[in-house]
């Protein structure tokens, strides 16, 4: 409604403008007034047209002032956006590859564990996902944990149990900082969830150290150039090199293979419920599909008599008497 009337005014405004020009033209040609008779003067539409122009102007001015994004950071400060990799386990109908998790855990233990903790993962979580009970027990027993205070109130050491959590490389954050040039290696338990880009980011970060920084780039003392890390200067040096670990299953340990495995493992650490969640999703889908199909059959069954019924109208037998009555539209 509003649009239509606006259009109409616009059209008549155009017509008025056309009239005005033709009027002046004709006037300059001859002094006799001939065409201006029926047309409204252009001043009649000046107000709505002016208001519309003002409205458009304010919107344009607002957009000019506030409409665009303000990027205070340079691309280098943002960091390079990681490429999307076709992760098999991320597909909605796929699970973690537990062989890969096992390899990834090996990489974590042999490479990352010397700097990064994984303090939210207990040994029991590894059972059935990454190793057997006996393997996990043996692994736990390699480390010592504090006991409860004994009769004398002294805390002793005992070998680890399945219920213990993976040990951290440093006693506390300060010790970790002191050992790493002031930079804290963050806990990796939830790292996949904690960073924009998740798996893609960590994979790119681990494999993305260029041989040398691009020309002209300034890399601070003690930092390493990595395009994916915001700011491009990261305190962690490249840690993965070809054949750094030797996989039990004979997989070739190239840098990207180790990175892929450890990232999938870290994804498991952050989302151990993923396999179960997908399984539950399929249960929900299949149960509701069955119910949906059932409901269609039941609906058919219930509606069958209603849909197949026949409404019959038998007109009464006309008696000749009616014909004798005057018809309504016949004037008598």
């Amino acid at each position, binding site marked *: 409604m509003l649009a239509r009337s606006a259009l109409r005014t616009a059209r008549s405004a155009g017509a008025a403008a056309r009239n005005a020009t033709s009027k002046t033209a004709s006037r300059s040609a001859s002094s006799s007034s001939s065409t201006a008779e029926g047309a409204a003067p252009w001043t009649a539409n000046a107000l709505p047209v002016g208001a519309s122009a003002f409205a458009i102007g304010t919107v344009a001015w607002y957009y000019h002032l506030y409409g665009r994004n303000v990027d205070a950071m*340079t*691309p*280098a400060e943002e960091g*390079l*956006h*990681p*490429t*999307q*990799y*076709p*992760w*098999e386990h991320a597909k909605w109908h796929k699970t973690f590859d537990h*062989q*890969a998790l096992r390899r990834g855990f090996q990489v974590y233990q042999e490479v990352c564990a010397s700097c990064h903790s994984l303090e939210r993962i207990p040994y029991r979580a590894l059972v059935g996902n990454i190793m057997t009970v006996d393997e996990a027990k043996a692994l736990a027993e390699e480390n010592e944990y504090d006991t409860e205070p004994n009769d004398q109130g002294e805390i002793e050491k005992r070998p680890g149990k399945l219920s213990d959590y993976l040990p951290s490389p440093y006693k506390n954050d300060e010790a970790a900082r002191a050992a790493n040039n002031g930079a804290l290696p963050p806990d990796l338990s939830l790292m996949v969830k904690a960073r924009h880009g998740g798996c893609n980011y960590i994979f*790119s970060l681990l*494999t*993305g150290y*260029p041989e040398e920084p*691009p*020309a*002209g*780039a*300034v890399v601070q003392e003690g930092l390493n150039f990595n*395009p994916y890390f915001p700011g*491009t200067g990261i305190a962690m040096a490249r840690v993965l090199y*070809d*054949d750094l670990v030797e996989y039990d299953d004979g*997989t*070739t*340990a*190239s*840098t*990207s*293979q180790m990175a*892929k495995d450890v990232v999938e493992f870290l994804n498991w650490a952050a989302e151990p419920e993923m396999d179960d969640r997908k399984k539950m999703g399929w249960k929900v889908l299949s149960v509701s599909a069955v119910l949906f199909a059932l409901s269609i059959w039941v609906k058919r069954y219930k509606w069958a008599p209603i849909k197949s019924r026949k409404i019959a109208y038998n007109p009464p037998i006309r008696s000749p008497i009616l014909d004798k009555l005057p018809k309504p539209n016949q004037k008598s």
Partner: protein
Amino acid sequence: MGITDFISAAWDTFSTPSPDAEEPAQANKEEESSDEKEESSDDAEEEEEEEEEEETVDPKETLEEECRNSKECHPAKHHYDACVERVTSQIDNDGKASEDCVEEFFHLAHCATACAAPKLFSQLK
């Protein structure tokens, strides 16, 4: 015991063969076969293994190198190379660079990784 109990018990028994029951057998088989091989060609295998270890190349590096030189990434590579040339000459002439090639590097890296990603993941396990 109702008929449903019977069926579900039967299902549980036959549907999922217990994993531990089969695993050792398989492992044994593998061991046996590898043992045999080792006996037959002991020296040859050792050599092969050594060679393999030396030869491991990261498929990511090779694929991305190919991608960097492909037609797809030509514009990005061209800009990056031009920038490097410019900046090196600045350093040579003035002793310091007035710009850096980080952005050009980003564009090239973005192109190369995007081009290599699917090929790389089809090669990795």
